[in-house]
């Protein structure tokens, strides 16, 4: 008993000591400038960083003095991995770089390797690639819109956007068997023949989509809370943005008409009629408007692709590079030999280098591929848009309020897999 009592008494004493006196609870504010500064660690697990981004913020009250992004938490070494994979084995890795724009990453890789191989892709495959790229853009923008609005408290937007996104993922699943890691665009064409009845599924979705965009705009465009949170926030001069290597919707929101689909058309984009939306606000609100307009333009492109889809082969005929038809393998010895050689040895790609750029939902996506003539890439560098866009974070945040940092970061549309690779 003695022991217990002394123990309780000692606890009491500690408790007494720990209890702050009135002066400790409300200390006199220290007004020296050095005392008002603090360093706030945001992330890597913060929900509004959309992944594992860490930003160190030096604050003076609520004003950000300095911001320093720390990346690398999602570094998976995909570029190193590509160097030990055969050319055809790289395609599934490209899905995992930007997991919201997987088909556009597939396309960029396929175009680059086809350029090295000087391989002609059938027209139907090209049109299908364009259609799927634009559906991917819709998918990516929907995720961006939902999470960006959620960050700023508009929760219902998230549900509406993911409702439509689900339809797009079902289309991807119908085509490739996979919802996200599709690997559907391969070197030479497509991975599989398009499924029976795809026209109806895509047209049902796309014909109803314009009214869905109307719904989003009704909810947000003139919403006073949304305008207050986004207007005049995150402004960086256009020259600085270009200097920092920023591309995509951020530049278009600053009034620069830049779009790789128009400037250097690839995969037959020159046959499609669409506009490049630009705004001059250069703030979070303008970036929002640009992406909303891009959704309408993507819808237009998908409709045109649906109406004018040519018939024909879905993959190029290139013995020794493209896997032969299953039926041919049962009757022709050459087909069987080619199949065996491609699967075991891979196919050689002529020595050379190529830098292929496509327009991803986030900006310019570039694959720089160096081949030494073997069946594996010698070097594959992914110029991902998010990596360059993320460099503009200090310029966007410094000197602004802490609450605006969420809106600014959302407007960059970060995908951390795309940053860290």
């Amino acid at each position, binding site marked *: 008993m003695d022991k217990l009592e002394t123990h309780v008494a000692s606890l009491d004493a500690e408790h007494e000591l720990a209890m702050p006196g009135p002066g400790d609870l409300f200390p006199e504010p220290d007004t020296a400038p050095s005392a008002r500064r603090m360093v706030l660690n945001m992330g890597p697990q913060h929900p509004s960083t959309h992944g594992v981004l860490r930003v160190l913020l030096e604050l003076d009250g609520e004003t950000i003095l300095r911001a320093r992004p720390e990346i690398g938490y999602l570094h998976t070494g995909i570029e190193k991995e590509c160097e030990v994979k055969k050319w055809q084995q790289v395609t599934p890795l490209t899905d995992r770089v930007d997991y919201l724009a997987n088909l556009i990453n597939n396309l960029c890789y396929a175009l680059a390797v086809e350029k090295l191989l000087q391989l002609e892709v059938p027209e139907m495959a090209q049109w299908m690639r364009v259609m799927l790229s634009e559906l991917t853009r819709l998918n990516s923008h929907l995720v961006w819109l939902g999470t960006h609005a959620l960050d700023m408290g508009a929760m219902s937007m998230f549900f509406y956007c993911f409702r439509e996104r689900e339809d797009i993922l079902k289309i991807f699943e119908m085509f490739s068997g996979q919802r996200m890691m599709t690997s559907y665009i391969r070197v030479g064409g497509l991975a599989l023949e398009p499924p029976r009845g795809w026209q109806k599924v895509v047209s049902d979705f796309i014909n109803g989509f314009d009214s869905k965009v109307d719904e989003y705009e009704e909810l947000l465009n003139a919403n006073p809370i949304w305008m207050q949170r986004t207007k005049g926030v995150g402004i960086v001069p256009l020259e600085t943005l270009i200097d*920092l*290597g920023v591309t995509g919707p951020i530049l278009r929101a600053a009034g620069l008409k830049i779009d790789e689909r128009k400037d250097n058309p690839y995969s037959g984009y020159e046959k499609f009629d669409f506009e490049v939306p630009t705004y001059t606000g250069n703030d979070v609100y303008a970036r929002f408007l640009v992406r909303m307009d891009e959704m309408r333009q993507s819808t237009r492109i998908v409709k045109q692709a649906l109406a004018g889809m040519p018939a024909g082969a879905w993959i190029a005929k290139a013995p020794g590079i493209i896997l032969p038809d299953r039926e041919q393998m049962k009757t022709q010895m050459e087909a069987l030999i080619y199949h065996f050689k491609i699967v075991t040895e891979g196919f050689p790609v002529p020595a050379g280098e190529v830098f292929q750029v496509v327009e991803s939902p986030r900006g310019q996506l570039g694959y*720089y591929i160096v081949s030494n003539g073997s069946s594996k890439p*010698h070097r594959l560098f992914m110029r991902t848009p998010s*990596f360059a866009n993320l460099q503009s974070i200090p310029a966007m945040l410094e000197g602004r309020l802490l609450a605006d940092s969420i809106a600014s970061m959302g407007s960059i549309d970060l995908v951390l897999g795309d940053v860290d690779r």
Partner: protein
Amino acid sequence: MLPEPLAEHPVAGPLDQRFPGAIVEGKFALGEVSLFIDPARIVEVCSALKQDFAFEQLTGVTAVDWWPQEPRFEIVYQLHSISKNRRLRLKVRISEHDGLDSVTPVWRGANWYEREVFDLFGVTFSNHPDLERIMMPADWEGHPLRKDYPVHGHRYSYADE
């Protein structure tokens, strides 16, 4: 020396005249232009390209390791002229212990790309504002994208025990 089709090129020709000897070699293949630049003169060539040839944006910087050849590294700069809708590739050949001048004073966007090359290839850039590892942890040993670095790594990132 510039090969025949490049002497007519709107950038390569005038650049060669303005900086005699700075362009070591030129290549034109698959519709893309690559110019090999003398490593000591990369910054002056780059600032001239930005100021007078309208290459406003640096799309990316990376390296290619040709180990065991010497010089083992090729540093690759992808330049983009937005106003002229033109792309250009600059290359610099350096060996393992040669440093290179940073082009961050020319394009601010080079900052992270050079940090990445430093981190993954071990090439040092002098005059860089903040040359630290960017992808790998700060205490990491080795440079993973080098060809003599095994794919599975030398050790795990956490304690082996």
